[in-house]
């Protein structure tokens, strides 16, 4: 649900990074924060445990510049990936405009990826969204690990509507901005449609 503020001439959109625990959602946001010009970003807020596991969410506001005289702002959120934080995860999806699914490429985490994807679909449904209709991108993270599954195998299991897929090594920044740009574009194109 985009917030269009004619008074301040701003468009505000919300993008949520979803996926299994330790998959690299927070790493994506941290990399974006580090590499973004200070004028174009706000404070990075992390509600995390003492051991740096996301407890509630990470939040990063980005200012992408003007489009048709409107300042375009994206609010990036991550959800806590661990299974038992489901109640918190649902809350973060409220008012979402686009979703990035960060999948863990390690073979041993494929089951967790699939469970998280099913969970995403269910939680979106509870908020009144259909995953098939929401702007959606998949990121295959941790491509550098020796136990990473082949890309084609992951696509076969995860892709379900021809959504864009990006290979990434979020810790090094590979694929991070490509993913962000694509989801941001998809959200803006959705805005153009006017729904």
């Amino acid at each position, binding site marked *: *649900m985009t*917030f269009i503020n004619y*008074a301040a001439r701003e468009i505000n959109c919300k993008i949520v990074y979803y996926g299994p625990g330790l998959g690299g959602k927070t790493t994506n946001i941290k990399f974006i924060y580090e590499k973004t010009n200070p004028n174009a970003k706000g404070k990075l807020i992390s509600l995390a445990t003492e051991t740096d596991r996301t407890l509630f969410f990470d939040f990063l506001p980005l200012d992408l510049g003007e489009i048709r005289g409107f300042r375009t702002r994206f609010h990036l959120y991550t959800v806590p990936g661990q299974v038992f934080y489901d109640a918190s995860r649902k809350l973060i999806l409220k008012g979402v405009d686009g979703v990035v699914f960060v999948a863990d490429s390690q073979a041993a985490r494929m089951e967790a990826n699939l469970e998280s994807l099913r969970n995403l679909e269910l939680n979106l449904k509870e908020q009144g969204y259909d995953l098939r209709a929401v702007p959606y991108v998949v990121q295959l993270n941790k491509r550098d690990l020796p136990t990473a599954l082949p890309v084609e195998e992951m696509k076969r299991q995860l892709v379900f509507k021809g959504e864009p897929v990006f290979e990434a090594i979020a810790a090094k920044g590979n694929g991070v901005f490509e993913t962000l740009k694509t989801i941001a574009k998809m959200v*803006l194109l959705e*805005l153009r449609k006017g729904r």
Partner: protein
Amino acid sequence: MSGADLVLHDEEYQKIREVITRLRGECNAKVVFLVDKNGQQIAAEGELEAIDTTALASLAAGNVAATDSLARLIGEKEFSILFHEGERDNLHISVVGGRVILVVIFDERSSLGLVRLRVKKGSAELGAILDVMMKKSAAPRKAAAGGSPFAEITDEDIDKLFSD
């Protein structure tokens, strides 16, 4: 997609500002702040220089969302007011019209009783303005004053945002 986009036009924005400016005076508060339940800032008045309002909006919405869930867990519909007491500053958070969050930051120059009283009155006024805002948001965007500037967005416009 779920529901319509939230659209704030200048007319409602000015009315909202009038109400929250007056509310701030009546409460003797440092800051009065209005945020959508999804974490988008709608309007703010007061001593804002030292405050990261974007972060405040996001955290206030997160706080209310978590508290709403807690309420439902124990069989309550909602906890309509949240109050955080600090050494110097206090935070009074309430939900207006089930949709928008009103945050009042105040110090020893005011009191919880006064803030509660004034917020109650101000909320009714804000509720009426928000009703109009929601109705306009739900209407097709073409019908809105000035038409939709977004129908004309080109791929080039979008590419320009990412040119650096």
